[in-house]
């Protein structure tokens, strides 16, 4: 019997089982290809083998076989498995050398029992426990890293740290002049939005002039530092994690360690100090641009003059407001540098790990920026300053 033919005139794969004396013969037919549109009915063949199993050997007849690929190999390995489980001899002598060679090669190294494929059922408490342990591990790693950075600062003050000055100045530049456009744009828009929201509400009471107070105080105390922090977390924190993560992958950090150079001294402290010094300056710039954004709304929507708006701004805002924003921004700078560098140093050894490190650095930095902002506000309220 010839194998069936498909629409392209190619014969479809097929197999038949027949008995020849004491042996079962598995006759293979047609073109066995992974790209064929018909899958062979294996259950029929194994059903016939089961029925006819009163035999001592299975032999393969390839006289009807035209072409073959991996699909045939997989089928034959299943037949061999079946024969082994039924204590029947699987005779490969009639198989082409290439097929028997591949069967031998696939069985040359026994399967490694890793247990990785077994799907274990986990209960809620397992996941809860794992999450708590992971969180505790995270806290421990963060504290450990913060401690290392503190020690590094102490070494730097004593002049004993391998401090990379070139990296320090380069990071200063990256975190200052190069960040001005994006910080300016976002801060200007933030001031504009704050002023719009205030204008709509305050105009109802004829108190439109107080939009200047709202924008000035909000930008100086909170929004200037927070918006700058968020921008720098996304821009610089992610870059720190990716740079140091790539260095970890290419064993550059190991090379530093083998030279007895602390990676924290060399890679983290310069970045941390650069951000610590630059964040306050960026925040002052952000506050100024935010106020300018508010002034645009004041002049165009509330018909105030620029002088009126500026005078009202100066009346509403004092040095403590600016000092609060500046102090917060220095803290945010340290947070961004610490999270970015810590994620980079703790990065895995592959390309995906670098991406994950950058992502988690941004998420963690923004979370900590908001949390620490709230903490500082509470402390200020409690301390009345």
């Amino acid at each position, binding site marked *: 019997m010839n194998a069936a033919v498909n629409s392209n005139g190619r014969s479809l794969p097929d197999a038949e089982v027949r008995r020849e004396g004491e042996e079962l013969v598995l006759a293979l037919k047609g073109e066995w290809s*992974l790209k064929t549109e018909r899958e062979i009915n294996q259950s029929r063949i194994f059903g016939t083998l089961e029925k006819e199993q009163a035999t001592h050997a299975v032999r393969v007849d390839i006289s009807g076989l035209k072409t073959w690929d991996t699909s045939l190999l*997989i089928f034959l390995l299943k037949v061999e498995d079946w024969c082994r489980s039924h204590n029947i001899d699987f005779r490969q002598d009639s198989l082409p050398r290439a097929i028997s060679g591949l069967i031998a*090669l696939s069985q040359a*190294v026994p399967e*490694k029992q890793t247990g*990785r494929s077994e799907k274990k059922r986990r209960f809620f408490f397992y996941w809860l426990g794992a999450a708590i342990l992971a969180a505790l591990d995270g806290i421990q790693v963060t504290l450990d890293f913060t401690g290392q950075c503190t020690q590094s600062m102490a070494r730097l003050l004593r002049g004993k740290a391998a401090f990379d000055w070139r990296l320090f100045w380069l990071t200063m530049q990256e975190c200052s002049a190069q960040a001005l456009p994006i910080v300016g744009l976002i801060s200007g828009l933030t001031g504009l939005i704050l002023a719009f929201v205030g204008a709509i509400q305050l105009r109802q009471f004829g108190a439109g002039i107080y939009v200047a107070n709202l924008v000035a105080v909000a930008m100086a105390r909170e929004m200037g530092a927070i918006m700058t922090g968020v921008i720098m977390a996304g821009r610089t924190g992610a870059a720190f994690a990716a740079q140091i993560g790539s260095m970890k992958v290419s064993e550059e950090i190991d090379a530093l360690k083998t030279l007895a150079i602390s990676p924290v001294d060399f890679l983290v402290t310069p970045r941390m100090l650069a951000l610590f010094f630059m964040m306050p300056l960026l925040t002052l710039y952000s506050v100024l641009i935010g106020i300018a954004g508010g002034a645009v709304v004041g002049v165009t929507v509330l018909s105030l003059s620029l002088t009126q708006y500026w005078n009202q701004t100066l009346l509403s805002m004092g040095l403590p407001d600016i000092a609060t924003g500046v102090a917060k921004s220095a803290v945010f700078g340290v947070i961004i540098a610490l999270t970015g560098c810590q994620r980079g140093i703790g990065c895995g050894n592959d390309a995906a*790990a670098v991406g994950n490190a950058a992502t988690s650095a941004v998420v963690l930095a923004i979370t900590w920026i908001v949390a620490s902002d709230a903490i500082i506000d509470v402390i200020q309220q409690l301390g009345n300053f």
Partner: protein
Amino acid sequence: MMPETGRENATVPAIEVRHLEMGYGSFILMQDISFTVEAGQVMVIMGGSGCGKSTLLKYLIGLKEVEKGEICYQGRSFSLASEEERERIQRSFGVLYQAGALWSTRTLAENIALPLEQYTDLSAKQIREIASLKLSLVGLKGFEDFYPSEISGGMRKRAGLARAMALDPAILFFDEPSAGLDPISSRRLDDLILRLRDSLGATVVVVTHELPSIFTIADTSIFLDAETRKMIAHGDPRELVKEGKSDKKVRDFLTRGEAEYSSRTS
């Protein structure tokens, strides 16, 4: 195995390169490269560091556009082919990159599954079976659910080879397969290449400068010379190493500079 491309016509060379010029921009790295590889042969691309071995491989697998010269597979032009035809020919290639180039976010089985998912209509179960078989062919059965970062460099190379074989390629390309491996692992990989060649019937192109590998696996070879920017030898390396059969540079390379050293000291 018997895929559509690569073994249809035994009289036509599996690979034919005619007057190929390689370069980067206006810089000409190598010119007038011509050679043929018969179906089922293992050809080694030899030469010193920086001579353009890996660049030639990039031209052969279509990662670099041919500007001068022609590359043909089974008599069909690859460099002048339409986009569709090029992709069809490329699907008959299997490439093992230097470090395996496994996708780090996918397990070994998923790495092998990707080309099968893209180019076949097989079910997920069949694809899993094929991935498992390919891993067993390279001695990695049981590692299906491991990520590349969890296995050693040698295992990554073998897994890369399993992925290269996913679509039953007619031509296998290897870029420095022995680089970074110890001599025993390197020897095992050479044996594996030969066994797979014998079983799969594939044509194999290997870029290497590992002498033991060259003499173990090569049926034929070419030698690229960085100085003259030309291919200065083509043939069986066991023949090329003999006096009078090739340029002195080739013999020095194949005998690891022994001849030059002897003449200096004598």
